[in-house]
């Protein structure tokens, strides 16, 4: 700290500190504290704010547990509050999407890091980056066009005789969330691929060759040498894809149907349709909790530091 004063003088150092203070206080800490505080207050008309009814309570959080409805979990009939069901489904299908993106990304990341000629690598990476620059709304919309009832996918599948009649993909075939998961995987697969690629790249090729020379089968080399080395990348990619999926509003809104509610959509309804910002705040806080738990879980599971995850 004194070092900064010595190098840049008082004026500049204070300017740096003021900028950082503005960021962390006005843009990060205070807004989140406001959110936390608002989540315990009732939703009142403007005239009654600050009046006798404006007291702290857990009512907004209690709404989370209201409206029990039947829920079919893999053939077992359960009773669960509607919002809890949405929350758990969001977590579950975000996890599925994370696993699928990992399965798709790992071979590709290994290929780019260790198989491809270094000369053609920049071109290949550029090719992969192009779809990333196309807006997320449009990427979800592209799948909407493909999956619609009268769309090209049904036309092709019926045309080659794989299907007898067109399917309503957006209503779901396996689960109600098929189309949403397809859209999430398509939108976020590269957020998994690039971190894994980065971590495999730093692995010394000699280690792979040594393992092969010592008689390891290809899958043993991957399991015992490459995967452990790629751990920080996998952790980073998984947290990224999970958080992006669970926090996505575009993909579920464009590709979802009435029986595939996403928790962001629930929040959006409270905030923008009911205009009940206090309940919206309470639900947002649940998201922050989820986010914290997931990051902590990943750090513990993969034994990595926060600086490995957020890169």
């Amino acid at each position: 700290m004194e070092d900064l004063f010595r190098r840049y003088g008082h004026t500049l150092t204070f300017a740096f500190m003021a900028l950082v203070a503005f960021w962390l206080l006005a843009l990060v800490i205070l807004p989140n504290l406001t959110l936390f505080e608002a989540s315990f207050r009732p939703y009142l008309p403007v005239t009654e704010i600050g009046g006798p009814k404006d007291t702290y309570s857990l009512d907004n959080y209690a709404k989370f547990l209201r409206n029990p409805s039947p829920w079919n979990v893999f053939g077992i009939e359960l009773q669960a509050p509607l919002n809890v069901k949405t929350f758990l489904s969001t977590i579950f299908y975000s996890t599925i999407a994370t696993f699928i993106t990992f399965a798709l990304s790992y071979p590709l990341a290994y290929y780019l890091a260790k198989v491809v000629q270094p000369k053609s690598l920049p071109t290949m990476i550029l090719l992969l980056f192009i779809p990333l620059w196309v807006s997320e709304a449009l990427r979800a919309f592209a799948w909407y066009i493909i999956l619609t009832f009268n769309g090209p996918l049904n036309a092709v599948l019926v045309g080659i005789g794989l299907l007898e009649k067109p399917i309503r993909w957006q209503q779901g075939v396996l689960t109600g969330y098929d189309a949403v998961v397809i859209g999430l995987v398509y939108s976020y697969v590269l957020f998994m691929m690039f971190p894994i690629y980065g971590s495999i790249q730093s692995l010394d090729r000699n280690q792979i060759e040594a393992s092969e020379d010592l008689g390891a089968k290809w899958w043993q080399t991957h399991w015992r040498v490459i995967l452990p080395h790629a751990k920080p990348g996998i952790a980073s990619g998984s947290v990224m894809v999970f958080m992006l999926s669970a926090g996505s509003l575009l993909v579920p809104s464009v590709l979802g149907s009435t029986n595939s509610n996403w928790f962001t959509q629930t929040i959006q309804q409270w905030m923008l349709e009911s205009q009940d910002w206090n309940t919206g705040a309470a639900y947002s806080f649940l998201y922050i909790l989820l986010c914290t738990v997931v990051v902590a879980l990943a750090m513990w599971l993969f034994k990595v530091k926060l600086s490995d995850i957020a890169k």
Partner: protein
Amino acid sequence: MHKTRNFLFNLYFGLFLLYLFLPLAIMGGAAFNNNKLPSVYPWKGFTMTWFQQLLADQVMWTSFRNTILVALAVVVIAVPIGAAAAILINSISGRVRAALYGLMVAPILMPGAVIGISTLLFWNKASIPPGLHLSVLGQVSYIAAFVMLLVLARLQSFDSSLEEAALDLGASHAQVVRRILLPHLYPALGAGAAIAFFQSIENFNVTLFTRGTSNTLTVYVFSKVRSGITPTINALALLLILMTLVMATVYEVRRRRLAKVEAAREAEGRRAAALEEL
């Protein structure tokens, strides 16, 4: 063995590219279909109507302008904040550093919707109504973290004894920053500005909750996709994709030319060395 393996890998890469690009191609193709719904199937003939309708759409142009303005504002605010944060955190160590670092990267991991809502509630308390200015502040809160990470990485290769030397030779603090620190950071600041700009253009979640009644391009696209849906949106998509392709091609051509110049220079160096040996 290696031949089959390489073949399979190349095949996988090809299929993966197809998987990434085919949906975009289908979406773009639908822009020319003379069908009231956005689809390539059934094909009802070629038309340019949707492009004409798009270019005549005033709302689209306003949204486009707003997007650019918001993105520029985000760059102007987030780059100095991110750079200052990196310089600050680079000069401290221990627990304080870990805590500050955690606080700074937390917004990257937080869902955009939550950032949008907390920004809205906080400024609303200060009686500042929602609007694009709040979208800017909300976006800066996490985009500054990207800039911070980039600048911090660049600072690792910074030789601070240069600053010492300048100070010993009588340079002022402002001169040290302008002549020594900033020139070293330029690549990271440039990359940070580019990332900030594109992140801002892409942003939907934060903007949706803070925008008030103004539109940005992503919000416009979203409302189009959800409501009436005409293929004008495909026309817009195609134009945006083409723009991306042009940018990527320019970048690639430049990179190859630079690589060629580099290779020529190296060859010349080798020839010169060989001549000297003779």
